């Protein structure tokens, strides 16, 4: 198979698909040209992610990484969620084919983009957190 059983499970039965109407923040990354767009919705209370949902236009691994990434951050504090890496997402899925690694980066970027919006709504990213958002500058295709 192209994908691990874990990837196929998350693709066939994606967790957390949908929108959060009263989301605290959303993040959208990717573009139609390259065939992947991910949108993450976060519901945050007391610095804790109490719910996360996603919508994704993309290939099997894009959907699976969205599903896995949202699952990994639900219930986490923001500080914990900031530690999410694309590598951790890929590992949690028992790996991705090399040409699909950019999908896991996209998932990390989508979460970070939502958290960035959250901080910005609060007045800006604290200096000591800025490093976590450098990934948003990275080109997802150079992974």
């Amino acid at each position: 198979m192209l994908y691990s059983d874990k990837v196929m499970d998350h693709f066939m039965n994606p967790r957390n698909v949908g929108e959060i109407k009263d989301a605290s923040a959303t993040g959208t990354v990717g573009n139609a040209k390259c065939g992947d767009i991910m949108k993450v919705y976060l519901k945050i209370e007391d610095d804790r992610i109490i719910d996360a949902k996603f919508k994704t236009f993309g290939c099997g691994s894009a959907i699976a990484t969205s599903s896995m990434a949202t699952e990994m951050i639900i219930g986490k504090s923001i500080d914990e969620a900031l530690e999410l890496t694309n590598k951790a997402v890929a590992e949690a899925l028992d790996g991705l084919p090399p040409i699909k690694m950019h999908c896991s980066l996209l998932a990390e970027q989508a979460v970070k983009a939502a958290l960035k919006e959250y901080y910005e709504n609060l007045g800006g990213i604290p200096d000591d957190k800025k490093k976590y958002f450098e990934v948003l500058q990275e080109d997802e295709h150079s992974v």
Partner: protein
Amino acid sequence: MSDLATSRIYLDHAATTPVRPEVSAVINDVMNQHFGNASSIYMEGQNAKRLLEEYRDQTASVLNANGSEIYFTSCGTESDNWAIKGVALRNFGKKMHIITSSIEHHAVLHSFRSLEKLGYSVTYLPVDTDGLVHPDDLKKAIREDTCLVSIMMANNEIGTIQPIKELSAIAKSRGVLFHTDAVQAVGAIPVDVRDLGVDLLSLSGHKFYAPKGVGALFIRKGVQLNNLFDGGTQEYNRRAGTENLPYIAGLAKALTLADHEMKESSVRIEGIRDKLIDAVLASIPHVRLNGHRTQRLPGNANFSFEFIEGESLLLLLDHYGFSCSSGSACTSGSLDPSHVLLAIGLPHEIAHGSLRITIGRDNTEKDVLSIVPVLLKIAERLRAMSPLYEDYLNARETEYELCEKCYKDEEDK
């Protein structure tokens, strides 16, 4: 072990076809009984040689060629590379302009790219929204230093059939050699090299129920081109390598069978295809048919599903037992969607959501049409999780940044 679980429905005959039992039987016979090297002087070799020439004549007769104009190769890709690089390199330093279309198979396009690196100048002819090359564009493109025009007979993705006869006549009137990649056409529609007026024509066995790994190049008598394989004296000194007699036997057999059955088979397959197209367009919203409505291969249907990415579609179809393909880049490891779909003018996000269904001799109407409700279900499911569909429902314009870099990467390849 077998791929053909009873419940599976294979609808990707443009990618490859299963080997017909009559053909695998011939291959097995020849492999076990005639192992001689056709270049050898003794009995085993001379028997192989005699059979080889019989298969060559059989192949030629289906195409209305002479036996001495048929050269067996290892695949369609080899035939394309040989024809294109062979003619171009023959004219190295003399005529270094070559012409093709923008919707060719990569075997053709990448051969042109590699010639560009050696200093050739290339004109890529545009196509209209149906995928047709316009003869006037070819007329304008031919220059004093043009040595070759290569335009495919039928497109592998959208099935559009080009007016080869008209195009080759233009090349001929200007003294330019004309090659056609007929890999998708041979076995599916009538192909007569004299009527088409072509100088070179590529075909590949695995598109008409022979195995993968055998093809042929028709080279009209008198046409000069460099060899791609230098070495022994096989294939009249033009294509070295000990001859693969079993597969050549299989190719000749499969081609002859396809020729005999063509009329009946193509009417049947075309009928199923038209019902499929009508049913899909009628029952699923936001779907368009790609390719020319009538001037297309009998078994080909190509749709774009808005708001949906192709690989996800294919994975779900596979789950439900259907084998199809897509023009989405995600399935091929590149990031840009099919150059064919872009060339006919589809925007990227639409091109990414394309699905190719290609019907073959083993498909029944019932089997093929059973995909329609499944497609509807899958389309609904994927759209429900698509941010593009959400935007559409909210009447918002999609406005994500375009990735210039990955487009450029694709261009640079």
